[in-house]
């Protein structure tokens, strides 16, 4: 058991140790300073020349958003049609069919938005073409979209900036060529050497000990799996995601993948410090995020390692902890740690069945996604955190008797309007959609749909409610993991979750970029003794309180009816 704990501690320490130099490197990339990766510059120049992009042309925040949204719309249509007609496209050795329109709608949005909720199974629902040229492609570009949006905000936070906020395409392309590609490359190599397939051949077969013929799906999977972790995507090659022995073969790959999940989100926080030369602020943000992360990690590991009291009641000993839905090669501790990592970062890849975990883990995972700003998805995690900073700055600015200001810019009505709307959006999407699902389930259980609502849930009572709540929380947080007990490949779930994902992806990008852009245009106020410093522990406590209170206040009743009630029902 101690090795299990040691494994998780090692993973976290190693992540932070890698994240600091990576953060410095990322800051250098975007400052345009020399890095050892400059040999790729000719390739970038070629891409820009072919696309007719002048990276010297700086954009204001509106031009940035127009660029970001228009390219995403393009990808959405591309992905949607590829998925519907994948059976007519090449690289389909297993002869898989095209996706239904509602499933394609859900899947396309799911990958555009960096969510990767997968209502299909990779083995039967996708082809090698869509896996590679839709999913893997979107893994890269959706992650780069988040980083580029975050870079606009970083740039706007600089002292003497007005409305020249850099070039979106420059941020975007460099995010891929300088950050995502190199790291994914390393991870993919490690995975391939540990047994993850990289073959274009179709299914393999073998005859099991019982004499059954077993079909084993293969494919060029290692690359996709690498970027799925590195870019906080989470959409795996196989239906079972990283619990699948070919996707995550052993404890070593588990460590590598788990580190990949939270590496860039943490590194980006340090990148903020290096980029703005405000290292103390970066440490405060990192501290707040880490505190939030630890608050989820410890109870979750404890609950899983402690085992299921209902089973213990039957007099069955659980030396490995609660092992339902977990892989023996990872164990309870590493599975619980992964579960929290994947939910804080909006990654959503899983190496165990979240549906089977203890209610405490359920609370931890859902709470992580409800906050969605402790580390968070690549780029967007900081954008969400930025909204909380703005609200915390506003309230604490007032508390010290000064019109609130952040990084030398006054925060006024317009910024508060945007910040309030964005803060409101996440609870709105989760609660309203879960309410609609509950309403349909209670009032029309046997309506004449292909899949009747009464057949949605695998579990009754509180856990059933958790399944629905988790699905929409995961969609709104652009996480993508699920309580797989839910019958989610049906028109209702495909469409509703699709809408939640796309709204909850782009509004929380537009909001912070707009606020940062508006603030950058304001007069810069130099710091004085009366200015509230934002790089102090006190302010860290303030942000943490704002985050916890907003999330706790919004979600407490719904959590009470789901995992909290389930937890207290265990005797």
């Amino acid at each position, binding site marked *: 058991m101690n090795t299990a704990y040691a494994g998780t501690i090692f993973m976290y320490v190693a992540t932070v140790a890698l994240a600091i130099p990576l953060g410095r490197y990322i800051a250098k990339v975007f400052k345009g300073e020399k890095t050892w990766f400059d040999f790729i510059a000719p390739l970038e120049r070629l891409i820009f020349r072919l696309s007719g992009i002048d990276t010297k042309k700086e954009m204001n925040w509106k031009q940035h958003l127009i660029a970001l949204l228009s390219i995403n719309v393009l990808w959405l249509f591309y992905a949607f049609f590829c998925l519907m007609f994948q059976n007519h496209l090449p690289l389909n050795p297993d002869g898989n069919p095209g996706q239904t329109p509602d499933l394609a709608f859900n899947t396309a949005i799911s990958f555009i938005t960096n969510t990767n909720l997968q209502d299909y199974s990779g083995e039967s629902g996708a082809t090698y073409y869509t896996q590679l040229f839709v999913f893997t492609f979107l893994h890269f570009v959706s992650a780069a979209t988040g980083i580029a949006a975050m870079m606009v905000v970083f740039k706007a936070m600089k002292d003497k900036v007005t409305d020249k906020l850099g070039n979106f395409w420059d941020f975007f392309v460099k995010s891929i060529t300088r950050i995502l590609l190199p790291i994914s490359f390393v991870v993919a190599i490690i995975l391939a050497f540990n047994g993850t397939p990289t073959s274009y051949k179709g299914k393999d077969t073998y005859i099991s000990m019982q004499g059954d013929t077993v079909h084993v799906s293969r494919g060029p999977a290692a690359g996709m799996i690498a970027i799925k972790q590195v870019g906080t995507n989470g959409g795996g090659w196989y239906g079972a995601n990283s619990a699948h022995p070919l996707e995550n073969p052993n404890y070593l790959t588990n460590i590598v993948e788990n580190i990949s999940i939270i590496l860039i989100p943490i590194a980006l926080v340090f990148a903020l410090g290096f980029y703005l030369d405000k290292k103390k602020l970066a440490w405060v943000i990192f501290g707040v995020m880490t505190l939030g992360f630890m608050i989820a990690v410890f109870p979750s590991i404890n609950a899983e390692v402690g085992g299921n009291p209902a089973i213990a009641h039957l007099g069955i000993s659980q030396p490995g902890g609660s092992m339902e839905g977990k892989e023996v090669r990872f164990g309870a501790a590493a599975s619980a740690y992964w579960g929290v990592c994947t939910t804080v970062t909006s990654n959503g890849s899983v190496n165990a069945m979240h549906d089977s975990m203890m209610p405490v883990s359920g609370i931890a995972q859902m709470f992580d996604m409800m906050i969605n700003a402790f580390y968070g998805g690549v780029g967007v995690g900081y954008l969400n955190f930025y909204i909380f900073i703005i*609200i915390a700055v*506003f*309230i*604490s*600015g*007032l*508390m*010290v*008797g*000064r*019109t609130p200001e952040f990084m030398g810019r006054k925060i*006024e*009505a317009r910024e*508060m309007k945007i*910040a*309030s*709307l964005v*803060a*409101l959006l996440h*609870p*709105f999407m989760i*609660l*309203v959609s*879960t*309410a*609609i699902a*509950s*309403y349909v*389930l*209670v009032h029309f259980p046997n309506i004449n749909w292909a899949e009747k609502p009464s057949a949605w849930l695998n579990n009754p009572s*509180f856990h059933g*409610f958790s399944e629905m709540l988790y699905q929409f929380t995961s969609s709104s947080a652009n996480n993508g993991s699920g309580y797989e007990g839910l019958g989610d490949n049906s028109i209702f779930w495909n469409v509703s979750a699709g809408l939640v994902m796309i709204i909850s992806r782009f509004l929380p990008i537009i909001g912070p970029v707009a606020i940062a852009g508006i603030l950058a245009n304001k*007069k*810069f*106020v*130099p710091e*004085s*003794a*009366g*200015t*509230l*410093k934002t790089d102090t522990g*006190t*302010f860290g*406590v*303030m942000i943490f*309180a704002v985050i916890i*209170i*907003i999330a706790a*206040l*919004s979600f*407490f*009743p*719904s959590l*009470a*009816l789901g995992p*909290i*009630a389930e937890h*207290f*029902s265990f005797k």
Partner: protein
Amino acid sequence: MAHDSFIAVKKQIIVMKTQNTLFQAEQVNDALKQSFVKLNPRVLIKNPVMFTVEIGTVVMLIVSIYSFANKGQGSFGYNLTVFIILLLTVLFANFAEAIAEARGKAQAESLRKTREETPARLLVNGKETRVMSSHLKKGDIFICEAGDNIPTDGEIIEGIATIDESAITGESAPVIRESGGDKSSVTGGTKVLSDRIKVMVTTQPGESFLDKMIALVEGASRQKTPNEIALTILLAGFTLIFVIVCVTLQPFAAYANTPITIAAFISLFVCLIPTTIGGLLSAIGIAGMDRALRANVITKSGKAVETAGDLDTLLLDKTGTITIGNRKATHFHPADGVDVQFFISTCVLGSLADETPEGKSIIELAQAINPMVSLKVPEGSVFIKFTAETRASGLDTPDGLRIRKGAFDSIRNTATKAGHLFPADVEAEVKKIASNGGTPLVVSENEQILGVIELQDIIKPGIAERFERLRKMGVKTVMVTGDNPLTARFIAEKAGVDDFIAEAKPEDKMNYIKKEQQGGKLVAMMGDGTNDAPALAQADVGVAMNSGTQAAKEAGNMVDLDNDPTKLIEIVEIGKQLLMTRGTLTTFSIANDVAKYFAIVPALFMVSIPALGALNIMKLHSPESAILSAVIFNAIIIPLLIPLALRGVEYKPIGASALLRRNLFIYGFGGVVIPFIGIKLIDMLVGILI
């Protein structure tokens, strides 16, 4: 007229100061009435938080009536109680606003009472006619002579007079007002003590600063300040979140087979939305202006008070603000071999006929050293006046003594001409005084040098501490003086100001303000002269002295009735208090929700989901009592906090981070803990009654 209003305000302020109570019976009655008048939804909609509570109240009224004859929504008594508590919540919030207004209105009412018509001597085409003061219009000219009350605000266009302004400033010493200079303004309600002046009316009836201020306080023209708007948006955001939380809870509960009564829904909602700050927000804003008025400052907008809290730089005139009026004698330095007592008595003799403040200060100092010093001027003495040419003054006695005191080089010239040497020790002393920022006054008797008197600017006692306090607030102080840079530097250092403008011309102030503003800073200044007007208008907070010219008063956004240049410091604190009160009560209000959740959520579900009884950490009596206790706590916290809202949270200049820590602890942590205790106590009482 409007001008009488000044007196009334002053009187009102005096009344308030002496009684030193927050609530007066009359105001409370008025506010109680207004609390009901403000229930009008068209009025209440301006406050989104309380408006939603009002909707909830109406719903509860309907539910109460329904439950009288029907079952399923709880007992009639329970519903009625919830209805009454919600109604009280709205009334309490209305009362908070109304009492803040009533305090302003009380001033307005007493103004109207004292607005007795004063007869005015209107001058039309050189002919004098008597009209009532209310008929005076802008541009009219009237005459006032000794014994007349000045009927309205105006500017002297001819003559000079001593005027008793005690009705406004409380100072009994009469002041001199004359045409032409920077002291040409007269105020309605003050009294002419001597001479005759011609005055031009400067404001239309009903448009004076005070009229504007009354309108602001009464709410007729009160607009929300930018900061208030931003906070309202945030609070509306919180309200919306809880609308979502409560509405979606219905299907959730239906899934869990847990029927929730409408009363419970509405109670949960009302408890969660930030009613405490929502109910007190406008009272806080009005109270801010009110506090400024108590400090004898009339503000032209609520925004000006708020801006004051953000000030980065204060421009202060040296004379009157940092130093006491004029230079004063501080030391007698006799030359070697001259007896001290003899030197002092000679200095006194040479200054007795001198009416200048410096001359007077020499006698004061001499008396302080030797109370027995003779103050008799020998009969037949001739006083020699100071002229720019001689740069010396003195006295010639009948028995042939010629005493002179004056500038160093002037006295030295006359001494050397008469063949006397200038003593080296006196010369050294002269240099020492000059380098210390003082002015040396060399004294001679019959062209022989006796010694030197040291004159110094006297820095106001306690001013250095006030500047230190400002520095801790993050406010930079700048001294503006006509002195040469050397003297200016010396005084600046001694008084502890951060910067100074020496040999200042009016445009220097303007340039300094612009320079600071370009660096993103907010600047305040105080001024009285017409040539200050552009700078007053340019400054973010321009405080005009009431004695100043009309142009200055128009240009600034505040008028100080006391003509006290140190007032800026108080104004900054009032502004900060205003923002802090908003911030701390917002924090308190939101932090309260934690406890309310732990009261209401288990109450909602405990019956059908016994496991959730574990969340009832306060061990409240029953679901009904838990809900009632939470809404009762939510309601009574509003009136309990009214005094704090009106007085404002105390500002301590301990640095922003320390202040945040302090307020976060008191209002954040306290805001989490207090309702746990409060709700539990109320529940124990309610438990007995049910």
